[in-house]
């Protein structure tokens, strides 16, 4: 069964992912793609403890996620893949041609970013990366929780739904 959701969310594992998306999707595994987390046993344990017992979590750096993606995608259970930043997801998409859509779930304010949506702030470089993803055939939309309006990338970049 293909992975149901490829999400960029700088909070990684949190309520919106585990409960907000995990329950309606009936997700039974998460793939957390993050080079730093994957290299630290303490970080992995931190996030593992945030996941309910009925859900498995796999940790991978981007290179490992590219290598193991066929295994995630052929899992009989439903799953969610999360990355904390646009750069990691872009590298993943370049290595995994099967990824057709990306969900922008939470990219919060920091220096150099400007507000696009309540939960999406981007630097000009990040905007460019997202445009390039879409130009490469990947649908990019923003939606923090399943009940929220799906915002196409063009509207995100225009700040249309702010």
């Amino acid at each position, binding site marked *: 069964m293909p992975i149901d959701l490829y999400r960029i969310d*700088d*909070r*990684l*594992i*949190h*309520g919106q*992912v*585990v*409960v907000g998306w995990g329950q309606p999707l009936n997700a039974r595994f998460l793939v957390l793609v993050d080079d730093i987390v994957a290299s630290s046993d*303490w970080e992995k344990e*931190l*996030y593992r*403890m*945030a*996941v*309910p017992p009925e859900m498995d979590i796999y940790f991978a750096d981007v290179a490992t996620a590219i290598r193991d993606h066929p295994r995630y995608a052929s899992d009989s259970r439903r799953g969610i893949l999360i990355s904390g930043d646009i750069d990691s997801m872009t590298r993943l998409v370049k290595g995994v041609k099967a990824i057709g859509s990306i969900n922008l779930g939470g990219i*919060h*304010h*920091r220096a150099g970013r400007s507000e696009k949506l*309540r*939960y999406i702030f981007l630097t000009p470089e990040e905007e460019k990366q997202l445009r390039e993803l879409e130009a490469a055939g990947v649908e990019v939309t923003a939606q923090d929780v399943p009940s929220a309006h799906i915002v196409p990338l063009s509207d995100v970049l225009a700040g249309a739904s702010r």
Partner: protein
Amino acid sequence: MSNIADSEQSAARGIVIGHGEFAAGLVSAVDQICGMAGKLVGLSMVGLTPEDIETKIRDELARTGAHVIFTDLPAGSATIAARRIVRDLPAIMLVSGVNLATLLDFVFNSEASPLDAARSAAARGKASLIVVERS
């Protein structure tokens, strides 16, 4: 004439943080019930990065001298941030899954140390969850 509630308004001993207006709502409820909201600080994490959430909690701990962090969900960003803080600061305790009964027990237990009060409060909070079904 002194006011019992005022006399109880000493420095904050606990920080409450969770999704949406969860913390403000709980602290407001504590205040309505016993007028002891001064023992708690409610924080919102709306719109913050994980790093900002952690910084905000650390800043409030330093400002208030509080020793206990109460969060809503074990899977929440606030809990993740608080676990990082507890790793660095052994004198700080985290209680996740907080409810109103937990906070009420905590604010009334002013003679115990903050950490003992938090342990007691967590037990009270767990015990307050009951299921009533028509038999």
